[in-house]
């Protein structure tokens, strides 16, 4: 097991290095020059060159990437020698348009994204799994049909529709949240009510689509597992239906859900662009969209992209390790 985990960690690290290098190459290929963008109207080639040097773009891509990696561990001074800005480790870069270390910007945005992801995750897992189990047990009956209506609505409504509908016709119509306080940050541990005020509806919006998919997935897994021979064995032993469902069926039926849940959660931690946009949450999604479309803030784009891919890879690793604990057949190898 230890060998398996350490090997997986090694692979994940290598993969992350490759991903980060690729991101630097991709941004090098984009036909837009940050050095020219921050140049004033009386731009001369000499000024552009100076800017390029200041931004650290005058060296090869490999060199830029290597400086980035070193900065991650040792901190880094950005800009000209002497008057440069120092960002302490882990330095993800320096945003010249915002005059701030990217690490600080990301650290301010991350609590929004994390709150949104955690809240939505709890909602969609509890709703999706319990509805799925319910409709599997009542297959073909009213509860199952009602659940499939929910599934249909949830999967066919895109977040940008459902989010706006929830915002306009529930949140604002019934004055559930003061529009001026929409998107305000509250610490969930010290101000749980304020936190719920900000995050309940965005989480619900996000959870709606996921819960629908998970309902469907849980339902089919439970139905499939129920027809396994070992469930018949459990019944032949004389176990009650309750124990068969809770212990024997769910254990096997929910194992694959752990996999996709882990990956979906990690995906959300990279930022939920649309939901954050609708509810005015200054999370990672909003941050990257702004950096791409408005300020063309390369260091921020690099940082958010890398964070998202790191989270997905780490989640993958965690899911695989968790799975080995759930399924003894995986452990053996």
């Amino acid at each position, binding site marked *: 097991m230890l060998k398996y985990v350490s090997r997986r960690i090694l692979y994940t690290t290598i993969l992350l290095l490759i991903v980060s290098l690729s991101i630097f190459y991709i941004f090098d290929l984009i036909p837009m020059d940050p050095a020219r963008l921050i140049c004033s109207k009386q731009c001369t080639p000499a000024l552009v060159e100076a800017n390029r040097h200041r931004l650290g773009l005058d060296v090869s891509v490999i060199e830029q990437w290597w400086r980035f990696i070193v900065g991650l561990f040792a901190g880094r001074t950005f800009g000209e020698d002497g008057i440069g800005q120092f960002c302490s480790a882990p330095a993800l870069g320096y945003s010249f348009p915002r005059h701030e270390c990217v690490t600080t910007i990301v650290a301010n945005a991350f609590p929004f994204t994390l709150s949104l992801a955690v809240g939505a995750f709890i909602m969609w897992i509890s709703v999706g799994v319990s509805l799925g189990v319910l409709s599997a047990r009542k297959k073909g009956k009213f509860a199952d049909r009602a659940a499939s209506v929910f599934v249909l609505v949830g999967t066919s409504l895109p977040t940008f529709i459902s989010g706006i509908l929830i915002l306009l016709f529930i949140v604002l119509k019934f004055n559930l949240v003061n529009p001026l306080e929409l998107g305000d940050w509250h610490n969930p541990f010290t101000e749980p009510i304020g936190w719920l005020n900000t995050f309940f509806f965005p989480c619900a919006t996000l959870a709606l689509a996921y819960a629908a998919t998970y309902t469907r997935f849980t339902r089919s897994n439970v139905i499939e597992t129920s027809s396994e*021979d*070992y469930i018949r064995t459990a019944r032949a*032993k004389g176990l009650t239906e309750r124990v068969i469902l809770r212990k024997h069926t769910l254990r096997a039926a929910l194992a694959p859900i752990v996999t996709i849940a882990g990956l979906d959660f990690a995906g959300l931690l990279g930022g939920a662009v649309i939901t954050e946009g609708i509810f005015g949450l200054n999370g990672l999604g909003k941050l990257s969209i702004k950096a791409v479309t408005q300020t063309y803030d390369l260091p921020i784009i690099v940082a958010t992209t890398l964070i998202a891919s790191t989270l997905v890879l780490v989640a993958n690793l965690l899911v695989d390790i968790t799975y080995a604990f759930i399924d003894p*057949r995986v452990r053996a190898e």
Partner: protein
Amino acid sequence: MSKFLEVRNLNVSFPTEDGMVRASNGVTYSVGLGETLAIVGESGSGKSVSNLAVMGLHNPTRTEISGEAILNLKSGSVDVISADTETVRKLRGKEMAMIFQDPMSALHPFFSIGDQIAEAWHLYNKGSKADGKNKALEMLELVGIPDAAKRINDFPHQFSGGMRQRAMIAMALVNNPSLLIADEPTTALDVTVQSQILSLLKELQIKFNMAIILITHDLGVVAEFADRICVMYGGRIVEDGTVEDIFYQPKHPYTLGLLNSVPRITAGTSHRLKAIPGQPPSLINLPKGCSFAPRCEYTSKVAGGKCSTEVPTLDVKNAGHLSRCFLSTESLNNLVKDKA
């Protein structure tokens, strides 16, 4: 004297979109303590379906069951077909147990062998976790798992096929049931392992004085193991007799066909096996008369073409030997002789 299990006129059907699948039609058999009944037949003959009905393992919403299956317990008789589900559940594992064809898929892949056996024991016995584990260990030793103390925490995938079936047997017998239904217990196993499992079952049967119902399509397995044999075809029992009756004086053309299709070591190399022509009947549209008639070579010998219009009854042909055929014993014997 009444036997431990008496199944009378058991019908099991499954409603489907294409029509009613009549998997078991008026099946009657019985088995006493210490006795082994073999139920023989090809796939779809209704042998598993009838016994799953006895165990109460059919999905009640998708199955129609009628008839009687009476367990004569010390505390009185119970008809498991008409009894409520909770009563039948409490009999499962305690009074009647079942083992299945493929022990790999019949054991839960996520729980250790020891846990699965202990779980069955805890259901009907009060005791600590350690007691359950000790009981599981005792059972694993009883069924001949080598190094049982070490293997008890293994998972099913770490066991070999034969050991898995031994573990299944240990789990089924942990509460000392009076009836064990073994549904093709050796079909998925190697031939050498098959005989080990069968002798283990025989040994445990004597030890626990159990009634065993052995469901199989392998006549070789039946010969050395069973006391009585029921041959099933198209959801009906077509012949019922002792092992000697069935093997030496078969009284139904289907049994004859089955016996002819088994290779015999004395027959020599030039002897070709004879297959029964045709296909088993569809259980949705059973032939109007005898369900074997379309494949039977003797239908022309029965007066008035009765075979295709009337279902023959299961008649006593000899003491304790029943067959569902219009032909008398003599005429069948003569016909067989003529052919040979």
